């Protein structure tokens, strides 16, 4: 089961459809706070999160994962000029990152690599 936390509807839906096509079960959230709640409630195989989101950022999501001691690979989606935040994300345990504009196909390949599918 994969959690996608992204406030851009087009990106969210595109990644969801690609993953469903690949046979994954997908859970969607449009804000950081909701993502943290879902992470507390369930165990995910992988999380894809945007850095900038309403209510809680991708960094706060990574902190929550660390706080709860969950071992889950996280791919961070960032925008140009957020290099420093990406460094923080890696310090908090992010496994990989992609800079927008990004290729959904490449994201799927990275997800495959991290989930060994």
């Amino acid at each position: 089961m994969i959690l996608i936390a992204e406030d851009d509807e087009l990106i969210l839906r595109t990644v969801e459809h690609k993953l469903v096509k690949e046979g994954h079960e997908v859970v969607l959230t449009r804000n950081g706070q909701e993502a943290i709640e879902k992470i507390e409630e369930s165990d995910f195989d992988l999380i894809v999160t945007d850095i900038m989101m309403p209510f809680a950022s991708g960094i706060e999501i990574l902190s929550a994962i660390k706080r709860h001691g969950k071992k889950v690979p996280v791919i961070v989606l960032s925008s140009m000029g957020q290099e420093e935040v990406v460094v923080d994300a890696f310090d908090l345990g992010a496994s990989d990152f992609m800079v927008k504009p990004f290729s959904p196909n490449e994201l799927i390949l990275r997800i495959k690599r991290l989930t060994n599918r």
Partner: protein
Amino acid sequence: MNFHHIVLHELILAIIVVLILVLLLIITVLGYSFYSYRILHNRHTWKQIIEYKIMETIVGSDRNDEQDREFSKHLKEPSFRLLFLEVLVDSGRKFSGAAKKAINRLFYDFKLEDEAWRKLRQRKAYLVAGGIQELAAMNVEAAIPEIKAKLDDDRAAVYQEAQYAMVSFQGYEGLEFLAHFDKPLSDWQQLRLLSSIHHIPELSDVQVYSWLKSSNDSVVIFTLRLIRKFRLMTFYPAIYALLDHLATAVRVQAIRTMQAIENSTTIGQFITCFDQQPIEVQLEILKSMKLARSKESEEFLKEQLLNHPKVSIKILAAEVLVVLDGGQYLREISQKEDTYDELIQIIKHALQEKKC
């Protein structure tokens, strides 16, 4: 009696007229609000339809005839087509690779190029700028000559978008306009242009030297940023010469650039020119020394800490000394009996900063 009757009659008439006017005003406001609501609602619904279409194209899902018919029906609406174009351009900024190609394909399949061309030929600046943005985002190379002509437009919204479009199309070659550009290039525009240049061709030296000599300070500053981005070491002597430039902003950028492409002479040159520079440039020199962390600047910094008349310079000099492991020296100074209070405070502040 008759006179009073007439006055009363006219008063009633006047009240009725006012009431009718108020009623008409209420109806107009309600009508306009409903119209605005419809537009907003349509935009929201249309945006969802358009984004679904884009998503469907990117993921290559099976086509649904009913949805296709519905979409074609909407396409007959000019405002829907304009929104489609807007959303498409916005989506192009989110994706790369095959997804970006799919978005470009939609642009041509639905002949949205016509809308963008039409906007380019409008009079209003924001429409022209929008047209330029859309044609550039969808990489319509046939638009280059017309966009190039807009570089000379007097309206900032138009020429700025044309500059960005030229750089998006042609990369470094798109910067040709800098040779004769006489208006200020805003910071935001400079950053936009810089982010679109990914490569500097060989044999570009003559052009870069000419921009460094431009009478437009913003062009000189942009060129310095370009040199910094690509670490163009060969321009070092020309940048050093800019420390005599009339504009302080240029000198500040020159210092930053010298630090970015520093060599064994840089710190010595900073020390030599320091006294002739205004305070803004002196502060920048100290900031550069902080980044360079060179022991060569130690004595110079001690001198500034003790004797410079400006407190801001003393504070920064103390901070740089801390970075250069001069903490012990600073503590000794602060414990001397003849050290004045202000200097003790400056040193305490610098040592505290280090702890933070």
